[in-house]
C-alpha cells in the first residue's frame, strides 16, 4: 500500500485527505488512478481529444475519450443516459445503474452538469449495456450535434417559489423531441432547460441555448398581516426596501404599509426571496430565452441568453403544445439558417432577434428586442422603426 501511495504522490493527498474527495470515489472504483496521476505529474489532462463512436444501433448517446497514456488505458468509451427532468432518481434505479456500471464498466457513474449520467465501458459492451438500460426504461442520447438532455429545476415538487411546473414542461419537451435528442442533425449542439422561476437555479439563461424560465407578469403580492408578523419576528424592514435593485418597494405615506411601484418593478425575485410575506404574482407563465452559452468558442464567446418573448401564459399542461410548437419551430429555423457549428447565441446575434421573431410569426416588441429594458412589461412609446430612428439619429 505504501509503495502504491508513493507512486500516486499527487492523488494520495486527496486520497487520504478530508471529505469531500473525488479521488476517494475514483479509487473505490476500477478507474485507473495511475492515468490521472500521470497527467497531474505532467500538468496536463490524462485524456486527449474525444471522438464519436459509430455504432449503427446508436446514432447518439455514445462517445469516446482517447487516452494520452495508452499503455495504461487505451481509450474510454462511454454511454450517456438521458436523465429525468428535475434530476431525481429512485434508490432502486440507482442500484440498477450501479449494477450495470459494475458489470459492464469500471463500477463508476458520472453525474454530468448537463443532466445526464455517464457509464464508462468498452466498445463491445456498449450495445448489451444499452439493451439492459432500455429494459429498465432508460435510454441514451445527448451526444454530438443534437438536442441535449432537457434539464429542469425541481419545480413545485420541492420548491415553494416555483411559478410553473418546470419538470412537467421539461418532461413534455423531452418526450416530444426525443428523436432530436437521439438522432444528430443540427449544425451544433443545442442545450435546453426549464427553470421554474426567475431565480433560475439551473442557470438556463446563461448556460442553455434554448430555454423557458418561469415568470409572473402582475406585481408581487404583499400579505400585510404576514408582513407585520415578519417585522415583529425581527425581519429587516429597511434591508428589504434597500435590497430591491430597482427601488420599487416604497412605504405608503407615514404608514408601515409597503407598496410595489408597478413602473419600477422588474419582476425579479429579490423581495420574494428575502421576505416570506411577499409572494409572486398570480399571472404566471414562461419567458422564452435563447442564446445562452458558457463556451468561449464562436465569435461572441460566452453569452447571456436573449429574452425573445417575455411572457407566454401557462395555465396548465394544455398550454404545453403551443410551447412545444414554438420550441420545434425555432429549432428548425436555426438548423436551416445557421452556419456549420454555429451555436444558437452566435446565430441570434448574427441574424438579429427581430428577424427570428418575425419569421416565427411572433410580435416584435421594441422594449424586448431593439432597446431591451429591464421592465419588459412596460411598453416603449413608439414603434421599432421610430425608436431606432431616434436612437441612430435617422428616420425610416
Amino acid at each position: 500500500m505504501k509503495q502504491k501511495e508513493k507512486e500516486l504522490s499527487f492523488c494520495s493527498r486527496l486520497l487520504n485527505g478530508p471529505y469531500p474527495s473525488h479521488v476517494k470515489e475514483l479509487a473505490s472504483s476500477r478507474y485507473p488512478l495511475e492515468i490521472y496521476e500521470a497527467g497531474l505529474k505532467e500538468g496536463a489532462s490524462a485524456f486527449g481529444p474525444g471522438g464519436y463512436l459509430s455504432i449503427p444501433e446508436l446514432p447518439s448517446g455514445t462517445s469516446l475519450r482517447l487516452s494520452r497514456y495508452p499503455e495504461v488505458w487505451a481509450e474510454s468509451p462511454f454511454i450517456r443516459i438521458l436523465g429525468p427532468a428535475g434530476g431525481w432518481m429512485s434508490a432502486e434505479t440507482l442500484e440498477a445503474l450501479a449494477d450495470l456500471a459494475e458489470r459492464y464498466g469500471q463500477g463508476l457513474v458520472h453525474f454530468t452538469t448537463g443532466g445526464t449520467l455517464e457509464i464508462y465501458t468498452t466498445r463491445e459492451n456498449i450495445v448489451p449495456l444499452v439493451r439492459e438500460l432500455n429494459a429498465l426504461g432508460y435510454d441514451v442520447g445527448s451526444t454530438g450535434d443534437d438536442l441535449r438532455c432537457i434539464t429542469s429545476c425541481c419545480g413545485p415538487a420541492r420548491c415553494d417559489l416555483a411559478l410553473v411546473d418546470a419538470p412537467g414542461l421539461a418532461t413534455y419537451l423531452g418526450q416530444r423531441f426525443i428523436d432530436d435528442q437521439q438522432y444528430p442533425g443540427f449544425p451544433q449542439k443545442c442545450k435546453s432547460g426549464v427553470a421554474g422561476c426567475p431565480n433560475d437555479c439551473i442557470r438556463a439563461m446563461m448556460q442553455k441555448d434554448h430555454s423557458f424560465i418561469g415568470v409572473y407578469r402582475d406585481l408581487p403580492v404583499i400579505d400585510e398581516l404576514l408582513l407585520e408578523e415578519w417585522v415583529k419576528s425581527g425581519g429587516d424592514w429597511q434591508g428589504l426596501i434597500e435590497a430591491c435593485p430597482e427601488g420599487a418597494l416604497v412605504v405608503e405615506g407615514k404608514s408601515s404599509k409597503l407598496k410595489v411601484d408597478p413602473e419600477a418593478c422588474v419582476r425579479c425575485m429579490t423581495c420574494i426571496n428575502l421576505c416570506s410575506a411577499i409572494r409572486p404574482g398570480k399571472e404566471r407563465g414562461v419567458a422564452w430565452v435563447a442564446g445562452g452559452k458558457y463556451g468561449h468558442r464562436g465569435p461572441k464567446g460566452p453569452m447571456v441568453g436573449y429574452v425573445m418573448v417575455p411572457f407566454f401564459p401557462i395555465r396548465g399542461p394544455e398550454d404545453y403544445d403551443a410551447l412545444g410548437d414554438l420550441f420545434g419551430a425555432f429549432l428548425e429555423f436555426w438548423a436551416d439558417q445557421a452556419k456549420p457549428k454555429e451555436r444558437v447565441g452566435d446565430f441570434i446575434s448574427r441574424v438579429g432577434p427581430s428577424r427570428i421573431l418575425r419569421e416565427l410569426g411572433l410580435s416584435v416588441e421594441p422594449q424586448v428586442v431593439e432597446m431591451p429594458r429591464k421592465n419588459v412589461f412596460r411598453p416603449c412609446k413608439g414603434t421599432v422603426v421610430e425608436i431606432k430612428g431616434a436612437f441612430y439619429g435617422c428616420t425610416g
Partner: protein
Amino acid sequence: MGLSQAEREAIMDRARERGIDLGEEHWYLLELSYDYYRKHKTICTLRTLMKLSGWEKKKIYKLFPGNPVGEISKITGLPMPKEC
C-alpha cells in the same frame, strides 16, 4: 441516375460489406445524392437530404445507420459535404 449495371452492382457490394442491404428506399436516397452531386460536386448534408426526400431524420438513420451522410459517401464514393 445514369449508372451502369456494373456501377450499381459495385455500390450494392460496398453497401453489403457495410452491413446494408440496399432496397427501394435506399436507392431513392442514393438517387437524390447523385442528383445533388451533379449540381454541387458534393453530396448534401443530412438536413438537405431530409428536405429533398421529405422524410424524417429517424427514417434516414434507420436506412443508413450510424452516420447516414458518411455511409452514403462511403457506399457511392462521392465526396462528403463541405460542412462535414
